[in-house]
């Protein structure tokens, strides 16, 4: 089945006014395959990851598992670093969201681990209206990379987005499904 494109996200301030909308990745296995295929992905953690519970865990617990599963470097924006340090994880980079997007635009940039530009950028926990603006920047000015917004509120300006997921259990299932499916493509 052909995936749909996203027009109306959860937050109406993020409605797409344009022609180029995200492909909706409803099946987490499809999402895992996108991540698996990436050569040099980057994962951006926004402040919601340390403030939002998902079931009896925090969103960051899931996001860290996704990053660890494929050894994806993490950019801890806002004040996420503090919580990560408490959990014994040192982020690869601590640019704030707009700064990292500014660097991602530049294909010549060395990337957070010095391996050259990132071809896939994952986003979780960035304030939804700000994330949408940053995704629009990358959509228009970074043709060398793809973005995947792992956010239940959905993001039309990303290349890949989730459908709107209202129920928390479904959101947890999506995250767990993604973690479970990662690595399948490569192995």
């Amino acid at each position, binding site marked *: 089945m052909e995936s749909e494109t996203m027009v109306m996200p959860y937050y109406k301030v993020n409605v797409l006014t*344009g*022609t*180029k909308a995200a492909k909706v990745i409803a099946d987490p296995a499809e999402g895992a395959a996108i991540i698996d295929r990436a050569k040099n992905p980057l994962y951006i953690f926004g*402040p919601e990851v340390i403030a939002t519970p998902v079931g009896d865990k925090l969103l960051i617990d899931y996001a860290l598992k996704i990053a660890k599963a494929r050894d994806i470097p993490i950019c801890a*924006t806002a004040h996420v670093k*503090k919580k990560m340090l408490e959990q014994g994880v040192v982020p690869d980079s601590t640019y704030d969201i*707009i700064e990292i997007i500014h660097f991602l635009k530049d294909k010549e940039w060395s990337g957070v681990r010095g391996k050259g530009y990132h071809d896939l950028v994952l986003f979780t926990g960035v304030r939804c209206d700000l994330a949408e603006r940053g995704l629009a920047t990358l959509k*228009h000015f970074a043709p060398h990379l793809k973005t995947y917004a792992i956010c239940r509120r959905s993001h039309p300006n990303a290349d890949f987005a989730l459908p709107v997921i*209202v129920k928390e259990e479904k959101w947890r299932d999506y995250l767990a499904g993604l973690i479970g499916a990662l690595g399948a493509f490569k192995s």
Partner: protein
Amino acid sequence: MQKMRDAEIKAIIRAEDAWEPVGPTPMPTLTELRNWDFRLLNTYEPFYAPFCDLCCLCTYGKCDLTGNKKGACGIDIASQQARWILICSLMGTAAHGAHGRHMIDHLIEKLGEDKKIDLGSQVNVEAPIIRTVMGLKPKTLGDLRKAIEYVEREMIHLVSATHMGQEGDYRDFESKAFHAGMLDHVALEAADIAQIVGYGLPTSVADTPLVDLGWGAIDRTKPTIVVVGHNAVTANAIIDYLRSNDLYDQVEVGGLCCTAHDVTRYAGGAKVIGPLSRQRFFLKAGLADVVVTDEQCVVTDIPQLAKAAGAAMIACSDKICYGLENASARETGEILRAVLEEQKQFLILDPEKAAEVIVRAALELAPKRRAQKQLVTKEEGAMLAAKCRGTCEECNRVCPNLLPVSLGVSQARHGNFAKLGELFMRCHGCAKCEEACVNHIPILRLMQAAATWETYKMRSGRGPIHDVEIRKVGSPIVLGTIPGVVLFAGCSNFPGDIDDLAWLAEELARRKFIVTLSGCAAMAAAMSKDAEGKTIYEKYIPEFDAGCIVNVGSCVSNAHVVGAAIKIANIFAGLPNRANFELMSDYILNRVGACGVVWGPYSQKALAIGTGAVRWGIPIVLGPHGSKYRRLFMSKKEAGDWTVVDGRTRQLVDTAEPTPEHMMLVTETKERALVTIIKQCFRRNDTPPGRAIKLNSYISAYKQVIGGLPDDLQNFIRTEKEIPIVYKREVLAYLKEAGWQPKPVLSLPTIIGTYETKVPIEATIK
């Protein structure tokens, strides 16, 4: 034509006045500062975040600008964003300019164009912006009108450039937006000086009175007039009418937005109800007997809100007529009868007539409206919320601040108002949630039962910074031993709690920054009390000095903080400012650690102010909603070219030091804003002891709110002497790991000489 223009300029600025020689750029036109702009843009590239994939400006469109596509006219996506930025900056400049024009014309009519400008014994450099930009030392109200005429003249060319098929390059659009921003500052300064002179507002005094702030400050037993907007001409006429009729103590005058600032500068008994975000909330509470609108940032459905609350409503500005009948020429008694008997709303452009109608209507209406001034109780609130199960979430989806409205309302249904109270602290009062609610729950009214009704103390706006204050702090600011001058300006579109502003201001004041505030930000900063019940205005000094909290006043008073930066170059460093824009801006960029913050940006005026500040060399930090302005200015940080000229040797030097790091950026949370503001105050001119003090602030704040050491210290430590003693071991170990190399410390850094300009390098040295 140039000759004719030169002669005209000489006459306008009285070139023969010998206060300073006329510099290279008197009354610059669109292209005269273009080289300076491009020099800034080389280091600080525009960053665009398009709102829309399309352009729909002309009838060729809509044009799809995604990928490498161009519009039918040939424009690309970056230039289209830049054009939009210019259009919005022009709106902002026009709003301030027209405000200034109205204020000045009104005062000239009352006091004559020869009314002298006298800002008191402490302020000799009365108009640093107008002096620098135009080369004019304004002496009278008539001279201030010349400043507005200059703004008007330039604006027609700028607006023209936005037409389809005109300007076609994003850098030139940005240069023009800078021009609009700089003109905005000219207008701000002219408008505020005019009202200080014309109304005798405070000047040459730091310790202005503390005034009451908050919706709870309004005495509900008295007739209540609420003035909304930014132009206090009518509000001041209301005060005059009350005073001359012995009614001053019997009637409440409260303001929303900047008119509140300016009316409390005029009359200490007036009250500040709150910023823009509280307009709808307050008007729905029904406490106003008469609602008065002037101009700018007034919610557009005020006539309906007033009607629903049973209040009278008078519009007083030709900018906002609401389709109302213009009663300016009608007789007062006749208008009053129609207001009281037919509940008619009017436009009245004669301030004195409007004032009489407004006061008399309030006196008549108040006794009849007592029942309408009852606030919603918790029991009533629970009933209003009864139908909400919290599951449809339509309210959440439309909230522009992404708030969990459904949670607040559904808990209120059970009589628990705690969540709704929290929500209220973050609410912008847009009423989108009410509009979307499938059960038509009046959510903003419901908030009456959840909101705090406290009264706070705010120091009323003090206007210009004194020359003697500049002499005192000039040296420590330029050496870096005062870690920075921060201005919190602009609107109340805050991403989080309204009292985050007070937190940010206090974190900086206790680190000995000079903290200044204006507009809605100055109001929000009052909305937090410590354990002893004190606001930051009661806890910190009001003088412009290390560790102060200074409210300069309304939006137009922002001019005084930019003015203070210019005065440091002019009074403290002794550089001539007359028609010397580049010289002043170069000094500020390299040596004055100033940073502007708009934590709750929404208006085009705030965009114009911020864009103008960048042209002056003052970096701007925005809250997340600022991303919707869709343009920022950012450097490549350590990968950029940071070569400047050493004024002493006239040699080019690669400083390898990204300061100031960015010229306009958005930060997501208050924690990140704090460390970013501190960092944006670093300057190339900092002495090693000064840099050590700044780094101490940076590291301490970073450890407090983000954790660990900042991972860019290697960019800002130039010599080991700059490492703060308390962190020495830790930082040395970090630097070793990061492969740090010492960097040159210049005592006269300048970018004059790194681009083509009429300003000689010698001019930067006194």
